[in-house]
């Protein structure tokens, strides 16, 4: 574990997909940092680039996609210049990812035990019996009853919530420094979601893992994160501490998102909706990508806004931010 800096620092990351129809700038100049034991909520709607950001960190972007610029510093080491061999030794050991669909993580034809023991043996110099014991403990930790028997089951013998917990157990088994969780609870029921959030919190607290929680659900982030990073059309539009962003959203998009959440409003009143829809990533409007849906947009927004830091610890990409505390 290196130094005192953040566990992960992403600087000016650009991941573009070179398709036949044109260049999709899925991630375009994204920067953020996560400290040890902290949680960053990466929030945005479908197609905003939040998942591709996660994939880029792990070096999992496939052609026609390519990281074209930026730096990804993990404990001070730039992952973009690290070789595939080095990445492979980090993935599953120091950095783990939890996907929305646990069937994507688990091999359907291998027993859970095989998959978990393999994860340990690939990275640690222990014997098989020790690895099995670690696997059993990890299963117990995420609340799977009778882990000894369940280890010999196949993924299809688990329910969705159980499967996701197995995926989380695998992610946590080597006590990584960083976990990237991509909408891990979106497909789950509320009571199961509560269980998963509980486990994630506990393991983060106990092990000091840094967590990136990718989601579209602001309410989940409110209960979990220390900082929030809001993305729109491949760019970070607002970033700050949890309370700052939720209490005083200054970007019109963040404000619109918060106003769209029903529990915020008085019951039965009309919700303040964001008009229109997310533009196609192949055909983004020039300048600010949000201007077509923004109530504050004018001719200034035809130029591209820079990410600024109007208050320390608060970054925003907008020409017409809301004043702090304004209604």
């Amino acid at each position: 574990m290196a130094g005192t800096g953040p566990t992960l620092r992403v600087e000016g990351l650009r991941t573009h997909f070179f398709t036949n129809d044109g260049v999709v700038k899925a991630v375009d100049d994204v920067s953020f940092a996560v400290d040890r034991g902290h949680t960053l909520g990466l929030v945005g709607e479908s197609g905003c680039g939040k998942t591709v950001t996660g994939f880029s960190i792990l070096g999992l972007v496939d052609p026609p996609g390519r990281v074209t610029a930026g730096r990804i510093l993990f404990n001070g080491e730039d992952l973009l210049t690290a070789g595939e061999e080095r990445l492979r030794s980090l993935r599953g050991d120091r950095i783990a990812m939890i996907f929305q669909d646990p069937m994507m993580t688990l091999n359907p034809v291998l027993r859970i035990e095989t998959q978990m023991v393999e994860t340990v043996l690939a990275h640690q110099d222990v014997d098989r019996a020790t690895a099995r014991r670690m696997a059993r403990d990890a299963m117990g930790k995420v609340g799977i009853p009778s882990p000894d028997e369940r280890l010999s089951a196949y993924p299809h013998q688990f329910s969705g919530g159980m499967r996701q917990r197995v995926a989380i157990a695998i992610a946590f088994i080597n006590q990584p420094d960083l976990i990237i969780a991509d909408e891990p609870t979106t497909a789950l029921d509320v009571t199961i979601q509560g269980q998963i959030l509980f486990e994630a919190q506990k393991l983060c607290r106990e092990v000091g893992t840094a967590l990136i929680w990718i989601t579209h659900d602001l309410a989940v982030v409110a209960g979990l994160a220390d900082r929030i990073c809001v993305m729109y059309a491949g760019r970070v539009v607002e970033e700050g501490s949890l309370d700052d962003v939720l209490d005083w959203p200054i970007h019109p998009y963040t404000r619109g998102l918060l106003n769209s959440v029903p529990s915020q409003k008085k019951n039965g009143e009309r919700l303040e909706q964001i008009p229109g829809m997310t533009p196609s990533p192949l055909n983004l409007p020039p300048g600010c990508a949000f201007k077509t849906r923004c109530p504050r947009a004018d001719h200034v927004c035809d130029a591209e806004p820079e990410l600024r830091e109007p208050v320390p610890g608060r970054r925003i990409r907008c020409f017409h931010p809301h004043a702090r505390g304004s209604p």
Partner: protein
Amino acid sequence: MTPMIETLGLSKRFVKRLDLAAKIAGRLGADVREEVVHAVDRVDITVGEGEVVGLVGESGCGKSTLGRMIAGILPPSEGRILFRGVDVATMDEREGKKAALQVQMIFQDPFASLNPRMRVEDIVGEAPIIHGIVAPRDKAHYVAEVMRRVGLDPDYRRRYPHQFSGGQRQRIGIARALAVKPEFLVCDEAIAALDVSIQAQILNLFMDLKEALNLTYLFISHDLGVVKHISDRVVIMYLGRVVEVADKEALFAQPNHPYTRALLNEVPRLDLRRRAYQPVAGEIPSPLDPPTGCHFHPRCPHATQRCRDEAPVLKEIAPGRLAACHLNDGT
């Protein structure tokens, strides 16, 4: 006043019949049985005219099956459905068709619920012509009117569903339902598949339509925030049974059933920051093999021997408020 929709002891069982091999094995003394899922188990609910009733529960609790039976898509195994006080099973063909038209359904997945090979004008316009609501020569005009009503540009009526975004597709689904001039809409997770900002648009549309057309909704959702926003009354289901019915205000202020309380506790909220989650223990049991007595007892912190033995009945605990829990008996 007669409620618009009333269900009396409505049940739906799905039976997986034994195949030939299993039957032979059974004859030879093997322990094989037909698998029966009690998706909906003797449910009584009422929906009054102009009311929005939220139907809440986790996956597998039978909320969609109940909605489909009310919408007339699935035949019930047992029990009755009354439409304006008349049993739909006893209606003659003409009356039955009329009643069926009055109840329409909006589905969760706007990608799967629209025929990809039909143009919007046919998706929306087909049913009203067949049922004689508009003459074929007025179709274009009528379709345009319905499309405008749900916020779609009538210029797009010659397009196919894949040419629309998720939110617009959901609007097409709503237009299709509205085209036969229903009084009652069953919305089954109608906004669950949409992005947050689009969810707000569709929720607003539902509320506008209710005002403009005097509609009644059964709003099925797992999202308590959404249900709290739109409903007048809320019905909570767990494993095929109704466990609590209450006015929205009462339910959210003072949930009675332990399951409702657990559910409300788990809902992430914007104003609860960095909270420590304290989850309900256990999983939702399989509906193939539900627990004895009260279905919730294995996960309930207050369960007693009685809960394990005897299923609680749904009874009135306050005016307009029902709950199925032995704890209300003061034992």
